[in-house]
């Protein structure tokens, strides 16, 4: 009986299916849309993002290894111009619409300047190749500082160059013998902070020097122990953050005279950026943290977009609310102070096909 029922069922189904071979499936007609523009593959396939800057609401300009890009609408549309990045080596610094790239070039350093986020460049000659450049710092009024070191007969010498934009000539501005340079930061042309270490001092400490005369004279203000390769972020004239990749962070609220240790979060700190009077963002290896009191207390942000954690190698905040985080193959942006994030570029399979 069961056998007969089965046969009847098979016959009925076969009759119903007669001539019913369709194309595709109903699910194929269900709508879906790609999260990122697949055309952005030109930015990350056999290529990588090097620098990006948020100009306004959704306008982002930047450079990749192979060219310059500009998008007015978070990569829904964008321009890309082939313009190969000269070489991967070198030191990059940017602020106030000025991008400065120092690259070794034979016997000297070649300095490249761009005021349009990498679309066009002007060049000038920098320090000699014997100088090891550590950092290019661009201040708000487009003054450029080069921090470097030179080894002469066992003497490690700190060198600071200043470049004024009109003539683009690197002028040796300050030197200090038996000193290892670590980081530098300026607010305006006159007030600056310098992180350095004595040549024979332990690698876990850092000294903080300040200048009020545009870098001609530096005064040691304080020292911090237990920091290995520190970076410096200036919040304002009184507040500065000194941190290393391991996550140890110190905040000064008196211009560098004293420091207190603060906790940003777990994991490595990639960079910090002041985005307003009291708002500071920290890009971590596993997310983003935010401080709303000038760096004293920090909260990790629920930083994710469409199930992807926000990660990158650099960030750029246009103001307290709007900013981007990017890496070689990705770019995210927020317009609400990090509460929510959207994707501009991401290496999904359909992008890299």
């Amino acid at each position, binding site marked *: 009986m069961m056998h007969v029922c089965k046969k009847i069922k098979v016959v009925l189904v076969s009759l119903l299916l007669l001539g019913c071979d369709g194309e595709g499936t109903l699910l194929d*007609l269900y*709508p879906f849309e*790609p999260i990122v523009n697949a055309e952005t593959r030109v930015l990350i396939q056999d290529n990588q993002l090097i620098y990006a800057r948020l100009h306004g609401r959704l306008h982002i300009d930047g450079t990749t290894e192979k060219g310059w890009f500009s998008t007015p609408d978070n990569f829904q549309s964008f321009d890309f111009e082939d313009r190969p990045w000269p070489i991967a080596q070198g030191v990059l610094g940017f602020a106030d619409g000025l991008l400065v790239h120092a690259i070794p070039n034979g016997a000297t350093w070649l300095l490249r300047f761009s005021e349009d986020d990498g679309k066009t460049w002007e060049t000038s000659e920098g320090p000699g190749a014997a100088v090891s450049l550590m950092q290019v710092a661009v201040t708000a009024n487009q003054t450029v500082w080069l921090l470097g070191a030179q080894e002469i007969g066992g003497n490690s010498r700190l060198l600071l160059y200043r470049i004024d934009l009109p003539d683009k000539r690197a002028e040796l501005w300050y030197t200090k013998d038996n000193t290892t340079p670590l980081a530098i930061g300026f607010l305006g042309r006159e007030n600056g902070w310098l992180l350095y270490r004595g040549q024979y001092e332990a690698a876990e400490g850092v000294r903080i020097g300040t200048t009020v005369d545009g870098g001609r004279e530096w005064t040691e203000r304080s020292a911090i122990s237990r920091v290995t390769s520190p970076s410096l972020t200036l919040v304002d004239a009184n507040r500065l953050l000194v941190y290393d990749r391991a996550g140890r962070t110190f905040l000064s609220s008196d211009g560098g005279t004293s420091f207190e240790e603060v906790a940003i979060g777990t994991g490595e700190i990639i960079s910090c950026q002041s985005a307003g009077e009291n708002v500071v963002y920290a890009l971590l290896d596993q997310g983003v943290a935010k401080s709303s009191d000038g760096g004293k207390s920090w909260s990790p942000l629920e930083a994710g977009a469409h199930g992807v954690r926000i990660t990158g190698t650099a960030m750029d905040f246009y103001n307290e609310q709007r900013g981007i985080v990017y890496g070689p193959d990705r770019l995210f942006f927020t317009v609400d102070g990090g509460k929510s994030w959207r994707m501009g570029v991401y290496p999904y399979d359909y992008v890299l096909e």
Partner: protein
Amino acid sequence: MIVRRLGKKTGWIGILLLASLRLNAQQEVPVYLEGEFGVDRFGEASIRSVFPAGAVIRLGAAFALADQGRLRLRPQGGVKYFGNKIDEEITEQLLVIKAGVQASYDVFFIGQATFFPYLGVDYNWVSNFDMEDYGEEDATYSENYLRGSGMSQEIGLRVQIREWYVKAGYELFRPRLRAKRSIIEDDLAGGYLTPSSHAFRFNTLNISIGFSIQP
């Protein structure tokens, strides 16, 4: 699982019909047992390309009411089935279970042929799944990829000769179907945003043959 649910729904429809007939017998209102079988074809080309044609079965009890029994009201239930053979073993299926009411009116006749324009309203449960049949054992059914429900309206004409009739109608049906959660999650992981539901235009043209008997 899906077949069991289908059985439950059609079972309830059968019980309601029998109850209607018994009630009618007590009240002595003329009632006809009606059943029909037909073919359906989607109006939307994109959906028609997936399911070129389908089958429909309906059963109902028609009450002859006003105007000397010329107005007929028929509570009804039915099933629509569309198949799309993906390969030798797998067939995509679209199943629509229907329950509603149909009103028809005996407007005129020519010879033995009586003409009934009709209007119908149904509530529909839609499910879309795969059937795998390797011939050796019972077929297996996947979970629903898409499912949902909604109201449909049908308008048409029925021509009846004695107990047999032919009818042609057009059904307006725009159900909102929800995608299976894992599909949405897989799409998201792949970089696609998929809405949780979507309204499909399932309008169909159907032609059926049927019977109408007084028990």
